[in-house]
């Protein structure tokens, strides 16, 4: 995941590199993802979220659809 000054810069980067433009993530969404994923990482019982938990976390932030589904087979 990379940082961009604006949506226009994302479009330019994708076009220049031949990549598809994917859903964009805002600063607030990214902070929530980071705290949800990592706030317990230095603790004994820390672990990565399971696929169903990931789907729920993403959906809670409005990040839905096949792109954010960790078990989607749409991109095989």
């Amino acid at each position, binding site marked *: 995941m990379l*940082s961009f000054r604006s949506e226009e810069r994302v479009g330019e980067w994708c076009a220049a590199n031949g*990549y598809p433009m994917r859903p964009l993530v805002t600063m607030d969404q990214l902070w929530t993802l980071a705290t949800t994923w990592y706030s317990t990482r230095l603790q004994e019982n820390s672990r990565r979220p399971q696929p169903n938990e990931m789907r729920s976390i993403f959906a809670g932030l409005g990040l839905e659809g096949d792109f954010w589904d960790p078990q989607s087979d749409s991109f095989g």
Partner: protein
Amino acid sequence: MSLDTQTKLAIYRHFAETGQRPSLQVVAERVRADVNNVREAYERLRAQRMLVLEPDGVSIRMAPPFSGVPTQHVVIVDETKYFANYAWDSFGIPAALKRPGRIHSRCEQSGEPLNLEIGLKGPSPCSWLFHCLVPAARWWDDIVFT
């Protein structure tokens, strides 16, 4: 506490304290175990996606959100310099440490610097955006590229 958990905590706490990856020997000393047993714990932690190892099987490339190698995503917390694996992880380091910090990165297209203060409740309002090229289902096909 199991050896896997001790190993995981030793690795993550070393990153938190120094900003750098620990060697296998340092981790083994910290958990007071034989290096061969710790190497086996590394493999199990890799299978759990808590670690990404270099091809040598012992050097830590990633202990997310920490990077074992320099990247363009720099995070400063309490005067310690950390490298994050990508933008998401640059936010993850202050979140994991539960400390305010500063993120220094750049716009991937224009090169414009991103200098961002992160408080305990997150970043101040900012219009920068983040783009994830790889679908979630494919992240671990090549996590370094992701």
